[in-house]
């Protein structure tokens, strides 16, 4: 595919854009895998893959969307190898989720983070993309390689699950460490992976 070598200035542009999206990649990765150190490993892996694949990037399109696909696929692969188990990092959560002073905080943000990590991965990523990353449903669908309706339904289910958990305070405590839950997550990953990365293949 258009496999001409990039000129030096094209490479410089690519690198600048890649550098600009790193903070977003870190935020997405942290939401996906819950641990700051693992998330950063994932982002580094993503950057190396993106750099190696730069000739497949179409200048003028969204670098953030393009790299999110790469990150997502790397996450799914690592998840299968059992590297991530949606582990919850208490220290990071404390630091990251402290509410601004004086602000009314009806819900503990650490509860929210924990609740988020109990969601099935495909719902979690859909909610992260749309509810936190600011992607449209269409963009999120493109990143996940599935239909727009599927994304809408995943976001809807994620939202209602969080509503229930947070309103009733019924966040499963250790469900993500539980073997049954983990097996269920891996099974769901098969479904997620089935539609993997339309945008990355183009």
């Amino acid at each position, binding site marked *: 595919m258009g496999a001409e070598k990039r000129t030096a200035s094209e*490479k410089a542009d690519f*690198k600048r*854009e*890649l*550098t*600009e999206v*790193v*903070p*977003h990649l*870190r*935020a*997405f990765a*942290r*939401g996906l895998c819950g641990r700051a150190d693992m998330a*950063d490993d994932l*982002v*580094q892996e993503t*950057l*190396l893959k993106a*750099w*190696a694949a730069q000739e497949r990037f179409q200048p*003028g*399109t*969204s*670098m*953030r*969307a393009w790299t999110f696909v790469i990150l997502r696929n790397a996450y799914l692969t690592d998840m299968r190898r059992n590297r991530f188990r949606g582990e919850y990092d208490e220290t990071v959560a404390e630091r*990251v*989720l402290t509410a601004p002073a004086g602000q009314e905080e*009806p*819900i503990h*943000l650490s509860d*929210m*983070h924990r*609740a*988020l990590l109990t969601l099935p991965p495909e719902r979690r990523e859909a*909610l*992260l993309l*749309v*509810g*936190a*990353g*600011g*992607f*449209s*449903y269409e963009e999120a669908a493109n990143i996940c390689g599935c239909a727009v309706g599927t994304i809408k339904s995943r976001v809807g289910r994620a*939202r209602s699950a*969080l*509503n229930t958990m*947070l*309103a009733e305070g019924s966040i499963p405590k250790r469900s993500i460490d539980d073997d049954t839950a983990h097996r269920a997550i891996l099974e769901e990953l098969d479904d997620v992976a089935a539609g993997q990365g339309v945008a990355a293949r183009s």
Partner: protein
Amino acid sequence: MTSEQPSEKRPQPAVSKEAKGGARDRPDWANGLKRLYDSVVEEDLPDSFKDLLSQLDTKD
């Protein structure tokens, strides 16, 4: 950290699209989710990333 790409939206809450239903569609945790994401975006980049980015040019 601005981007010139037209397709690159500012992290604009997609929630706004659905806000027509009223406050019920935007529960308290929705802000928390956004804040969790934004707080990571705003963190200083660890040196390991700067090192990695500066080494990219030598990888071809």
